[in-house]
């Protein structure tokens, strides 16, 4: 039996800076996880991913990541995505500086 679909966000790295980005409701890229569009429909998620993959001169390595809806917007469910959304734990570097 195929696994039931769980909500996802489309995430990637920005081409020039390499930092983590998320596809938003209006089809743009945001550096904040909570701005991401949460896909609850599998076909829509796959279509959005396919469209994202065509933006080769802006982004790298797009994929679907598990997420759940939170108070301020989508939140990561796995610790890997939580680190991607904030930054490393040994220094206050990466996103946690600006967010």
């Amino acid at each position: 039996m195929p696994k039931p679909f769980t909500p996802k966000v489309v995430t990637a790295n920005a081409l020039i800076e390499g930092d983590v980005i998320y596809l938003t409701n209006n089809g743009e890229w945001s550096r904040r996880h909570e701005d991401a569009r949460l896909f609850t429909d599998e076909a829509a998620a796959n279509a959005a991913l396919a469209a994202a993959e065509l933006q080769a001169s802006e982004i790298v390595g797009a994929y679907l990541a598990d997420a759940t809806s939170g108070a301020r917007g989508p939140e990561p469910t796995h610790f890997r995505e939580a680190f991607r959304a904030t930054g490393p734990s040994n220094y206050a570097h990466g996103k946690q500086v600006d967010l």
Partner: protein
Amino acid sequence: MYSYTDFDEAFVRTRVSQFRAQVERRIDGSLTEDEFKPLRLMNGLYLQLHAYMLRVAIPYGTISARQMRQLAFIADKWDKGYGHFTTRQNIQYNWPALKDVPDMLEALADVQMHAIQTSGNTIRNVTSDHFAGAAADELEDPRPYAELLRQWSTDHPEFQFLPRKFKIAVTGAEADRAVIRSHDIGLQIVEQNGETGFKVIIGGGLGRTPMIGKVVREFLPKEDLLPYCEAIVHVYNTLGRRDNKYKARIKITVHENGIDTMRDLIEARFTEIRPEFTGVDQELLAGIKAQFATPPLREGDTAAYDAAYQMDPIFRAWADTNLTAHRKADHAIVTISIKAHGKTPGDATSDQMRLMADLAEEYAHGELRISHEQNVILPHVHKGDLPAIHAALKAAGLGTANIGLASDIIACPGMDYCALATARSIPIAQEIATRVDELKIEHEVGELKIKISGCINACGHHHVGHIGILGLDRAGVENYQVTLGGDHTETAAVGTRMGPGFSADEIVPAIERLMLAYLDLRDAPEETFLQTFRRLGDAPFKAALYPESEARNAA
């Protein structure tokens, strides 16, 4: 120290300008990521979790003060003011932007450094004993041979697309400080009938299938080094498993075909190609050797050292742990710890890099080394200068007296940086180091190698740590598995995996229990953790790791 020839210089500059054009084409959209990725990897550029990562080779770990200063400059200008020194004598920058990388490579080329072949399925940076040319126990300086191998392997047309990456380490001493038994080829300079040559070991490796290398040649005359290595890599290139990435390393080739078959094939290929090496390599080697001459070591009394050693307990503790015997009795080898308690193992700030460069220039003939244990070394220091060096290091947060002790941990970047990671390594290392500092037990515990990897690739060498820690993902939660009894030296062994893993909260107390158990179990303070483990086996250590299940069994 080796200095680039015109050929080296032109080669590196050409690569930089090629890569600059490739980056431009990637940014303007004329190259796709699929097309660009192999090109960036050929130049040491990865894409990690939060940013790009540039890996720069420090061949055989030797670096000049000027080069170290340039690494600091690069860290300030294009990164976040620090760099991460790795177990394979590289430095990694964690935050470069793609558009800046050609400039970074240009700045490296200005000091005869580069990032070529620091990634990809090719022969990687040739590593060596970080005490080479200085250690009292050394037969001969291995670095000229490492440099010869570097020149031979760089851009070698036959070996750019091997089944998998290929790593060579060389040592000139019996005490193995280069982990040669965990490399694809490990070379040790040995003596036979008054001649020096190489003991050749192949098929060592860590990763998902850890293996200790096997001797393929007990004695190889020195002038046969290149043809013999070429024969080894050729046989591997032909037989290596290209069908399965996880079986592609030479350790599997050796395992599947047997060392005797490998030896026959290698010897046959060697006989075939030997005549092609007409001696040009030996002329080259003679030139290289001249560049590795010992610097003119200073004469003078060591009164300042003796006085500080008598009077200052902090200096004495540092001298006892961080100094190694130099060939010349009034000199010492200084290992600078970049493992201050609670800091990220292997990270040095640009200010620290500059200070180390200054000290090297003032007191150590302008030369530094990077160790596979992620520390920095001043190889030739007159003992009389040690108090001044120690004072300067201490002021810069570099005076920690912990070399070889529990807080001198090797930790890979793990989930904090690495895209392949399944758990974090750095915070665990930080907590262990902080804890042993609070307890003030590490000097009593003595020599203890704790090594941590954030996934099964084993970049943190956990299999060969006395205590190895492997970070895993257990149903979306970080989990840490412990191995005991590993050894990276001439008595190399792969550690034994203990029982179930520990959560991030449980792992530090578990390591603490292991250290305390050892203090109870050892015969005498001279018996090291590893010796105690070898004498008693894992049972008492398992009991310390899992006290509850012990209690349950007893009930």
